[in-house]
């Protein structure tokens, strides 16, 4: 049986970093902090991380529509440029006079934006510390390691500590801090509909993985005498202790699954049917299950929920115009259905969904697609979001312009830390707990980007 000891917090640091102003958690810190600072106001909140794997080319998601802005965009993008007439106009609130449009396949998100439920955060990316183009080109200033590698950047988006090897994700650390709000709930605060991930791994809270169909139960046990013998023997096997850690982990996974399945299946079965219709796509099926788990929150005794969903295929090195169009249709319809579902459940203002992706993509094309970039634009969606606005700083869309590393890969002006901190703060983390969740936040100027007002 795994019992935490001091020794279990040995971090997998390959070497001592020169300085670590950021701090990763220990359970002792958490318990001290949680007891002192968690408000007990009976509210409910959910965060939904929608990870677009491959690196979404947001350069074609939100495009300048004014004459000169569009002209520069089109000149540089070449074959990848979206025709100006196809762009879906956006109405920017708050006196922002800029003229932008969405990719033509984002009609539902256009509506949500113009209704004020969807916001855009511009040019977000992994950063060790703020960096200018001049500093980047001169070398010497710290940048996240392996900037254009899918695996590394995906992990760094999820951990939000690019300059350290971290086993935990910021969502997991967030769950650690707020875990007590869920009291005696038997289901993990963090649920993934998309398999294992780093985002939801905490020091104490680990993600519970379900499928789009919910949890799955063992089949072939019909209550007959022979089946019962087999079932009992199986349970006995699962109760054996194992010296081999792989055996023990496998056994624990099966045991957890069986226990949670009974609870989850009951909780989901007792829900009234939902009116909102979700499209039949992989993404929407995931979001549908998220909506149902939100509906079951009271049955599951959960005041806080963190969900992880994902879609792949965004690595549009080739055939981007067709490939990305299909993906964006799925994204737009899925998020729209999800928002409607939360409205139907009366929790629209309590649920915030946000996108994340490995990186953006190069501004010039490689022929029919684009290559790995860096900073990109992300969506935030929910009733609490001050939608209809662009947050952060939109990059200058020029190769070798002030925001470019050199081949149209934008240097982020907003860090993943700031983006995540805004979400975490809304979710209920106090300012004193924030560095526990986001150790590097002190290096950046805007821990609250303001998209919740």
């Amino acid at each position: 049986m795994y019992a935490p000891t001091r020794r279990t917090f040995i971090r997998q640091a390959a070497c001592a970093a020169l300085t670590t102003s950021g701090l990763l958690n220990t359970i002792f810190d958490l318990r001290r902090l949680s007891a002192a600072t968690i408000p007990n106001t009976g509210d409910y909140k959910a965060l939904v991380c929608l990870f677009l794997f491959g690196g979404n080319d947001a350069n074609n998601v939100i495009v300048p529509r004014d004459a000169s802005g569009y002209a520069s965009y089109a000149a540089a993008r070449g074959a990848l440029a979206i025709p100006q007439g196809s762009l879906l106009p956006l109405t920017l609130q708050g006196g922002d006079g800029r003229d932008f449009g969405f990719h033509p396949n984002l009609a539902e998100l256009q509506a949500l934006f113009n209704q004020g439920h969807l916001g855009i955060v511009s040019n977000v990316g992994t950063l060790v510390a703020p960096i200018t183009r001049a500093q980047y080109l001169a070398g010497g200033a710290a940048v996240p390691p392996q900037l254009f590698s899918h695996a590394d950047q995906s992990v760094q988006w999820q951990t939000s500590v690019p300059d350290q090897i971290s086993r935990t994700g910021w969502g997991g650390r967030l769950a650690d801090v707020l875990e007590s709000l869920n009291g005696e709930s038997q289901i993990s605060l963090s649920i993934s509909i998309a398999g294992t991930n780093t985002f939801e791994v905490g020091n104490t809270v680990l993600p519970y993985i379900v499928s789009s169909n919910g949890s799955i139960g063992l089949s072939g046990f019909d209550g007959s005498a022979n089946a019962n013998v087999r079932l009992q023997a199986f349970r006995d096997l699962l109760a054996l202790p194992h010296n081999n850690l792989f055996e023990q982990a496998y056994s624990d996974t099966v045991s957890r699954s069986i226990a949670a399945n009974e609870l989850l299946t009951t909780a989901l079965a007792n829900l009234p049917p939902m009116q909102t219709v979700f499209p039949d796509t992989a993404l929407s099926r995931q979001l549908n299950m998220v909506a149902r788990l939100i509906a079951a929150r009271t049955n599951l005794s959960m005041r806080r929920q963190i969900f992880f969903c994902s879609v792949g295929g965004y690595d549009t090195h080739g055939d981007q115009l067709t490939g990305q169009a299909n993906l964006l249709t799925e994204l737009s319809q899925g998020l729209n259905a999800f928002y409607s579902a939360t409205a139907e459940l009366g929790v629209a203002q309590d649920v915030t969904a946000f996108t994340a992706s490995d990186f953006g993509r190069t501004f010039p094309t490689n022929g029919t697609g684009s290559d790995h970039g860096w900073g990109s634009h992300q969506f935030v969606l929910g009733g609490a979001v001050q939608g209809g606005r662009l947050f952060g700083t939109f990059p200058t869309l020029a190769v070798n312009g002030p925001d470019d590393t050199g081949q149209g890969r934008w240097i982020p002006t907003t860090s993943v830390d700031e983006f995540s901190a805004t979400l975490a703060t809304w979710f209920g983390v106090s300012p004193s707990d924030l560095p526990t969740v986001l150790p590097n936040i002190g290096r950046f100027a805007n821990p609250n980007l303001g998209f919740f007002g």
Partner: protein
Amino acid sequence: MRPLFQYAGRSAVAAIFLALCASTAHAISGAVNISTRMVVETGDNVLIGGFIVYGTGQKTVVVRALGPSLPVTGTLNDPVLELHDAGGALIATNDNWRSSQQDEIIAAGLAPGDDRDAALLATLAPGNYTAVVRGVNDATGVALVEVYDLDGENPTARLGNIATRGHILTDNDVMIGGFFIRGDVPKRVILRVRGPSLHLNGAPFAGRLMDPTLELHAGDGALMMENDSWRSSQQAEIHASTLAPTDDREPAIVATLAPGSYTFVARGLNNTTGIALIEMYDLDQPPQADGSTLFLALLRPQGGVNSQGSGTASMRLSADETQVILSFQFSNLTGPITSMHIHGPGGVILFDIDEPMPQPDGTYIWVFTPVGGFTVAEIIAWLRSGQLYINLHTAAYPLGEISGFFHLSTGAEIAPEPTPPPPLPSGTPTLTDAGRFLSQATFGATEALIATVQSQGFDAFLNQQFAAAPSSHLAFVDASGVDPLTMTQTRDAWWTLAISAPDQLRQRVAFALSEFFVVSNSTGDLGNRPGALPAYYDVLVRGAFGNFRQLLEDITLNPAMGRYLDMLRNERANASGTRLPNENFARELMQLFSIGLYNLNLDGSLTLDSSGFPIATYGQEAILGTAAVCTGWTYAQTTVPPIFNPPANWREPMVNVASRHSPGSKTILNGVLIPAGQPAEEDLRNTLDTVFNHPNVGPFFCRQLIQRLVTSNPSPGYLYRVTAVFNDNGQGVRGDLQAVVRAILMDYDARGSARTGQGVGHLREPVIRVTTLLRAFRASSPSGKFSLRGANTALGQEAMHSPTVFNFFTPDYSAPGPIAAAGLKSPEFEITTETTVITIANYLRSGIYVYLGPGADRVTLNLATEQALAANPAQLVDHLNVLLMASSMSTEMRNILINAVTQIPANNPTERARTAIYLVINSPEFAVDK
């Protein structure tokens, strides 16, 4: 840039080498120059000088070969200089120094005195390099080779040196070298002479000097230090440098030398002669940004400990020397740590790591206080002389399972040769041995194969498997008669061959290769491109026992891979530069298919620079250059000359259309410059050669192959031994995959090591659990095909269905919780979730109780043997233990199973058999292959 060199003395056929260390802003130490002169002969007796670039970043050097300008008689008339990288690939060459870089050489102040002298300027990434000097047209004569460091103030990349061989004779024909330390502060160096330890391709070097001696003289000739055997006087210091000779007869001297000139003399004891190698290394650490000093330790099992465990540790001594920050990691111990300490000489415990709380980032702070009668000054002196060690204790090894001494981090650490493992038992394999072997070497043991291996032995089985004809997936799908071919036929081929093909080992290795050189139906509808995926898979099947270099080329030119990673019809940049070559394949070629992201030692550990950080293998420039190499390639075709958009051809390697290929020069891995104007085939050949010869390929590839076949956590020794075979199969061939497979399966860690440790083995991949079930119980179908359906959904895995090019799981995944805390990798757990464990169990249940595959062609098990044994539950369970678990079933599990089977009515042998099989195949103990 002031080179200052002096040469004093001569030697017969030997080069001494040059070592230049960049002086830093803090002027800790000035440069050390050695140059030497020798007679350049022909063939192997040319002049070879070696040097190492350490640290991070690039270093700019000028290498010169002087002949005609030397003020002596008998000079080499026209020296030619070659610069080679670690793998032997030629980086640059020069015959006459004015021919290509005249301006730069003059600007550096290094213009040779004669136009026939050779010189070149190169910017080099960290690594080993050799400079070879020959005479044009095999002329001979005296020449001088030199290396100059042009980055005088650059603290991040430094030069060290290695030596090359020389023939030491007697009297004046011993090896004499001079060197000069410049700057204004002393430099700490180690000098050593290798003789007995000289090996070539794994065998002792013929004619080596068996007992060398070493003398160090001051500039005025006065003898300063001498040594015959390194343990005799400075053992602790030499050991702390991590560069201790591996043979006790070899001499070494550690010295801190003030600026000035010195000579060293290497001779044979008692006037013996032979070939020797002299080396000198810089032991200074460049200043750390905060004034601290970094010490590193490599943790390995010591003494009689039989463990696969390993680890690393670091201690950072504060600038004011009052405390250290301790950090360490470990992996693969036999059990949880029971205690951990820092010890001094004689084992005195100086620091109990359990006592303080770890810092929030996991490090520990040790504030120095007097301990056990020893003062703080003594403790610090021990630290600096390499006499402190860290020891991790476990229940199995209460005196310490792994430990290591701390030494100054210089960026010059090399992986130690592992202690040889115990010998394997002789004789033919037992039932258990055979079963364990077959779970690694096939898609599942059968009764027949267990008997075969038992009677023939492992080697005979391997030989037979290496010789067996490869089973072709493409031939299988073509024989199906279905037109057009779809993913269904590809799946049928894979399952049928995995389950029933006689070339089991080849098919199992091909599957492992498919998880390394990933191509899947997730992109470009490749599953429905007729024959595309089976044709690709056949490349892996054919290449499984061939050479890695050939395999690398074959996957690069395969059209399915081209489609998957965008090399197919990738075009050169357009004139305005608004369209650049696609980088996808170029990046994954290096990141996933050959060398990975960081420099590795031979045992798979990260090479660290002097600040303790890993060293990246390549940068964005190499990707841009490689992407340009990967342009112009399209489907094979009959049209001559080839056109860029012919009909799809999935069955033959791609061909190149010259007009679509980037014509300019391209900088690729290791800073290698591919000249402009070469045909694409030549560009590609140069690129693949450079990649193939990078020293990372062995440890990077072999580790993953071991992970797929044997264990998720190979010990450093296991990986070192297998990498050695990859680097040289014993006949001088690099990349011999058949030899590598044999080395993996026949190593002590696979055949002889214990199966009961906490981190032994690996979780069986879901598809292999299915093939194991179907093979063990002689599954069959009416048609003979195994047309499994729904496998990917139920198992979360299926061949050629990977969601991304990163395979279903990554080599470094550690399941959160106790596995990660123990420092263990567990790749297969990345797809093991609360959902998949149940869906897999349900799928296996269908295979046992119902059938798999379509209703019209059901795959069912033959349980005749098991039904016959069912009357005796213990016999049935024991039979399954041998057949499925290589006798590893615990007593507790056996009791539960026997008890359950007994409760099933005896007149229902089918149900008894199925119950027992279900319980075994879904048990945690079976889930882990060990």
